[in-house]
């Protein structure tokens, strides 16, 4: 008994006595908070794999800070706001974790980012698109993904000029998402009205679950739009396009990122669906950057496939930009990193394109692509 007590005491003395300073061989630990379990487990798993690959690629090139390796430490937030706060506490409690990639869901980030802010730890969201998250004046919160309103801005920038369109019709479905996107788009188009000759000639909503939209489509036809944007979901979108074509609406159809998928093509039929456009986050396989090719090759070599959703690669980019900042500043202090990310990071090449942040912490120049249904019914990037 006496011996055991002595042993514990000596060990404790040894542990506290040894000064824990970072050695050159110690890895730099970056946290990943994601939904490893729960309803979004699939997304969480892909984010974990993506961060591992990103870290491996950095380490293969000699690591950061003159040879130190990057290590990913994963905590699970189960896709729940409550668990999200606990997961964040777990990470900030570990002194060797310098920053975190966190997280996938907006409502989870809402609680988790508050913890990170309080304990001064840089946290970068990778699937958190709710606009309000960067309206809170947080110093340590950033995101590599876009915001809910960046899609509307993309539409205003890209679509009227591509179709040489002046008269724009916008239609939504009165859901929070569809209406939000429609309003953002209308606002973005109105902001554009000063410089380009665009005009919203039709703005109205359909009721989800309805089958007959000929009334509203007749109104749309009479408004003579040059292009027509629908921000709702695919079930109604397919009916809308079929019925619109049958009553003589001939202008190009552009759907939001919920409007077009394989089901849309099936319901509308290839004849109707081909030539329909959609605004969407770029899928990993469509990214043209060399960083993307390198990353996806490594991912495929290890896991036999590439991520099937756009979000995991934003996690990899979040990890990359944290590592980049540590390497460039030579510091792991949160204040230094946050200032550097906010002021100095600008056009750093990433998997999802050049990375930069606004003063609020939003991603600058969020990538959105215009997709089109081709003659064989596949959804491809519009040329």
């Amino acid at each position, binding site marked *: 008994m006496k011996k055991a007590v002595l042993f514990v005491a000596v060990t404790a003395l040894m542990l506290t006595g040894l000064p824990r300073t970072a050695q050159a061989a110690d890895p730099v630990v970056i946290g990943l908070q994601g939904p490893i379990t729960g309803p979004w487990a699939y997304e969480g798993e892909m984010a974990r794999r993506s961060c591992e690959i990103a870290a491996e690629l950095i380490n293969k090139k000699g690591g950061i800070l003159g040879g130190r390796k990057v290590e990913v430490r994963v905590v699970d937030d189960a896709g729940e706001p409550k668990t999200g706060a606990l997961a964040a506490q777990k990470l900030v409690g570990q002194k060797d974790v310098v920053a975190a990639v966190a997280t996938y869901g907006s409502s989870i980030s809402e609680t988790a980012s508050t913890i990170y802010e309080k304990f001064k730890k840089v946290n970068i969201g990778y699937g958190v698109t709710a606009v309000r998250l960067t309206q809170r004046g947080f110093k340590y919160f950033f995101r590599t993904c876009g915001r809910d309103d960046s899609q509307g801005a993309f539409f205003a920038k890209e679509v009227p000029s591509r179709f040489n369109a002046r008269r724009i019709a916008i239609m939504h479905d009165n859901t929070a998402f569809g209406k939000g996107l429609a309003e953002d788009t209308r606002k973005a188009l109105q902001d554009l009205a000063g410089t380009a000759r665009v005009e919203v000639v039709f703005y*109205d*909503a*359909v*009721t989800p*679950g309805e*089958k*007959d939209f*000929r*009334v*509203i489509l*007749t*109104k749309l036809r*009479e408004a003579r739009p040059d292009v027509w944007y629908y921000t709702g979901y695919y*079930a109604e979108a*397919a*009916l809308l396009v*079929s019925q619109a*074509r*049958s*009553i*003589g609406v001939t202008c190009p159809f552009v759907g939001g990122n919920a409007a077009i998928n394989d*089901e849309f093509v*099936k*319901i*509308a*039929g*290839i*004849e*109707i669906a081909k030539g329909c456009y959609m605004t969407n986050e770029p899928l990993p396989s469509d990214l043209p950057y060399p960083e993307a090719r390198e990353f996806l090759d490594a991912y495929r070599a290890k896991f036999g496939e590439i991520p099937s959703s756009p979000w995991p690669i934003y996690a990899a980019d979040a990890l990359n930009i944290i590592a980049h900042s540590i390497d460039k500043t030579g510091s792991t202090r949160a204040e230094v990193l946050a200032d550097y990310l906010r002021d100095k990071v600008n056009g750093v090449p990433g998997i999802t394109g050049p990375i930069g942040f606004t003063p609020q912490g939003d991603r600058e120049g969020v990538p959105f692509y215009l997709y089109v249904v081709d003659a064989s019914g596949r959804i491809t990037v519009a040329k």
Partner: protein
Amino acid sequence: MRVFLEQVINGLTIGSFYALIALGYSMVYGILKLINFAHGDFFTLGSYLGYTFLVFGSAALTSRLGIWGGMVLVTAASALCVALVGIGVERAAYRPIYPAGRLPAVVSALGASIFLQNAVMVLWGPRYRAYPAELIPDTALAWGGIHVSLLQLVILLVSFALMGALYVIIQRTLFGAAVRATALDRDTASLMGINFNKVILFIFTLGPALGAVTGVMVGLYYRQISFTMGWNYGLKAFTATILGGIGSLPGAMFGGLILGLLEMLGGAYISAAWKDVFVFLILILVLIFRPTGLFGEKTAEKV
């Protein structure tokens, strides 16, 4: 004018769907004084069966019979199957309950509706199904700027033919007279030698079959079907029944057509988002000022 004419044709198309479903409600109510809530689900079932026959029998059907012949066969097969289901539902869910009164029968009808809806969901899955576009004979027609589809005209023609045929059967044949007699007074009709069970068999064959035909036509027209759609159509058709006067066959027909027109024209000239509000507002007004419905008093005989 162009828009007006288009909306009238669209309104008549959707109105004829309501009318055909409403006939099923009205016939059952006329004989049994029972609101058959399962009727909307006969419609859904017909639509799904039509989809299945079309998808799995497509090659054989179109090569032997031509595409229109195939359509007729698919519709007829679906109607036959749903008629059998209708008879089965009557035997299992309604007949044992008649002696208990009208309210338990209505509850049983609701139960049958839930059962059928879930059966469709289990059999075909909860996702949307789409009638294959390439199998549907459809041509867009445009006369002087008016856009109508060939399918729309065929649907209108078939609907009116079916309504006409039903009217002739009920009004001009001996069996029709028996049905009308039963609706007027069941006991006296029985004393005159009319077989009540045969009359029930008749209405539970014809009602669901009409529903099934409508289901197939809705599938062809909109292409997209879901297992819950019977509820919406059932509700609208029920409104049409009340509007026309429940129990009256011409009432159900005109109620459906008026409802379809109201929906389309109200939507076109006032507000599309409010079109259901007009429909139910009219229903409320009719119930307040003319509770027997538009045709409730003019036709003394209820079927």
